[in-house]
């Protein structure tokens, strides 16, 4: 499996856009889109849980090359809290109920657009990482919080 790259990020943006999927980049991949310098292994997408969005998401994923069985498509359609995909051109984590963010609509209203990529606000990214209480997230939080200060200074009003 090759690493996720710019071309694939663009494909997600374009294909999800064409199927009208409501989603946001979350996690470290979201922070990186905002300008945070770090490395990560996969993209995390916070997806709105609704029947219509679930169906659009499955169609978009298949178009991107994810080999979903009907059972798997059903699980995505039903919006399980967390789906891990490694059966496509790149690894993708679909999160329907991230820790630390109460409702998709709230995160959507605070989103930041970066060259057409819908990204969670840095506060939501930090809130979700903090809420997981995982070792690997705890270690990244001090630098991420410093980035938040830097980012807010350069994006007043955000």
């Amino acid at each position, binding site marked *: 499996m090759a*690493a996720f790259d710019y071309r694939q990020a663009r494909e997600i943006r374009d294909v999800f856009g064409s199927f009208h999927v409501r989603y946001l980049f979350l996690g470290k*991949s979201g922070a990186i889109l905002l300008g945070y310098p770090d490395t990560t292994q996969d993209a995390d997408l916070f997806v709105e849980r609704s029947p219509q969005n679930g169906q659009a998401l499955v169609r978009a994923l298949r178009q991107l090359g994810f080999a979903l069985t009907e059972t798997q498509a059903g699980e995505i359609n039903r919006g399980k*809290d967390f789906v891990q995909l490694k059966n496509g051109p790149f690894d993708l984590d679909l999160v329907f109920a991230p*820790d630390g963010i109460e409702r998709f609509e709230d995160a959507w209203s605070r989103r930041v657009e970066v060259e057409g990529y819908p990204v969670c606000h840095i506060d939501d990214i930090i809130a979700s990482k903090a809420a997981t*209480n*995982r070792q*690997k997230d705890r270690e990244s939080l001090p630098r991420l919080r410093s980035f938040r200060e830097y980012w807010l200074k350069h994006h007043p009003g955000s």
Partner: protein
Amino acid sequence: MDFADLREMESPTDKSSPIPPEWLAEFEAAARRPLETRLRYAFIHTYKPVLDDEPFRAFATMEEYRRWCETNLPEWLGYGRV
């Protein structure tokens, strides 16, 4: 603790502290790079035992996922809760 408390804890406006100079230099350097370059250097792929061994996993709840990580993944991957 409810959601509002958590957000207050995690995004306080009164808790700003100086950004360490080496981090500041990294943030400024990243801001000068175009998005394509940033993404090219950001995504890496290394094999993660167990986690990478199944093409598809779905969890009904985040709690179920967290418990699965703690039970099945090597501790050094860092997916366990503190």
